[in-house]
């Protein structure tokens, strides 16, 4: 990632913002190197991807026009996304949500069965970052992506198997396993 900016309900999180709890303060130190300030719309200026895990109906298509070309929008708020897919698609190249009734559902059901299967099979003592990243690669590699299909179908049983295999291997490689 070239840059990561995290916003909360009060706007961009930056190092030194007065009202941050310890966890947000930790985030502020590791993200937003340019120490940008402002609101969500300011943050979107020049961004390639928006990941919303907040509340519904925050953005309009016009708010995305300052983003870089071929923008990626993941509006994950449930049940109402930060921006509805038909609205986001006016500007963005790829749009995903958490919902099963729109294309590109991004759902953790694709993840947790395989992650735990792999961890149990490896006799892992914990789930470390390497295992998580391996899971993401395995999940991504389940399909040849297109703009309307970036992840496999949620109930595809092969997904958990592939994720499990990758997680198991990563656990063994990083020695995160019981003897």
């Amino acid at each position, binding site marked *: *990632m070239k840059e*990561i900016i995290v916003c909360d309900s009060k706007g961009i999180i930056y190092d030194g913002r007065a009202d941050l709890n310890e966890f947000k303060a930790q985030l502020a130190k590791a993200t937003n190197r340019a120490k940008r300030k402002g609101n969500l719309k300011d943050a979107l200026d020049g961004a390639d991807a928006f990941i*919303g*895990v907040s509340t519904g109906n925050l953005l309009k298509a016009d708010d995305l026009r300052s983003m870089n070309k071929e923008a990626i929008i993941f509006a994950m708020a449930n049940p109402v996304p930060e921006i509805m897919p038909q609205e986001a698609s006016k500007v963005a190249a790829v749009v995903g949500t958490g919902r099963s009734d729109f294309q590109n559902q991004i759902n953790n059901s694709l993840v947790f*069965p395989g992650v*735990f299967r792999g961890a149990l099979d490896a006799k892992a003592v914990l789930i470390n*970052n390497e295992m998580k990243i391996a899971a*993401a*690669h395995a999940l991504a590699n389940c399909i040849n992506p297109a703009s309307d299909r970036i992840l496999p179908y949620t109930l595809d049983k092969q997904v958990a198997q592939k994720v499990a295999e990758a997680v198991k291997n990563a656990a063994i490689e990083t020695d995160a396993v019981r003897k």
Partner: protein
Amino acid sequence: MDIKESALKLHKENKGKLATKSKVSVKTKEDLSLVYTPGVAEVCREIAADKSAIYDYTMKSNSVAVVTDGSAVLGLGNIGAEASLPVMEGKCVLFKELADIDAFPICIKTQDENEIINIVKNIATVFGGINLEDISAPRCFKIEEALLDIGIPVMHDDQHGSAIAILAALMNAAKVVNKRIDDLKVVINGAGAAGTAIAKLLLCMGHRQKHMHFCEGDNSLRQQRHYLRWKS
């Protein structure tokens, strides 16, 4: 019938979605003497002599507890332990259907962090893994952190399950638009459980060296200590 009525009907007719199942049959006195006393005592002695044998002789190696305090359930918020059970049962059904894992819902009545930590530590005997679920931020960070070194995998799914799914989606979306994932400028809106975990995962992936301190602060140092303890 709409989805709300259908869902109520499904849950009421089945009285929930989950049941336990025996792996062995108990038809004769001999069966009984193996499954239960006196035969089972020998298995207990084995485990008492070597606690790691619990993985060979019991359900532990394939069981996961789905643990919640009901404080951040779906988009419904703090609806409490009782109301969270249908979600946890559903999660357990998916564990079984998609990964053949025997998962069990645990809905804890207290929302005191230290009490939750202690409860999970003390029930971990039975389980090969702990899936923390629908626990509100920032409480979930402290709870998960305190449980990282209990010797079995613990994962707060609202954080890491979501982060992994989103990272995979981002990898493939980047492919679709012909951008390198390392070149992306990403805005995350929401600094709760999912938002924080996504930021951390992206940082630990993309800027391994630069943000090493951050990843270590997360769990790498803890992992190292932990590996040493487990391997010794």
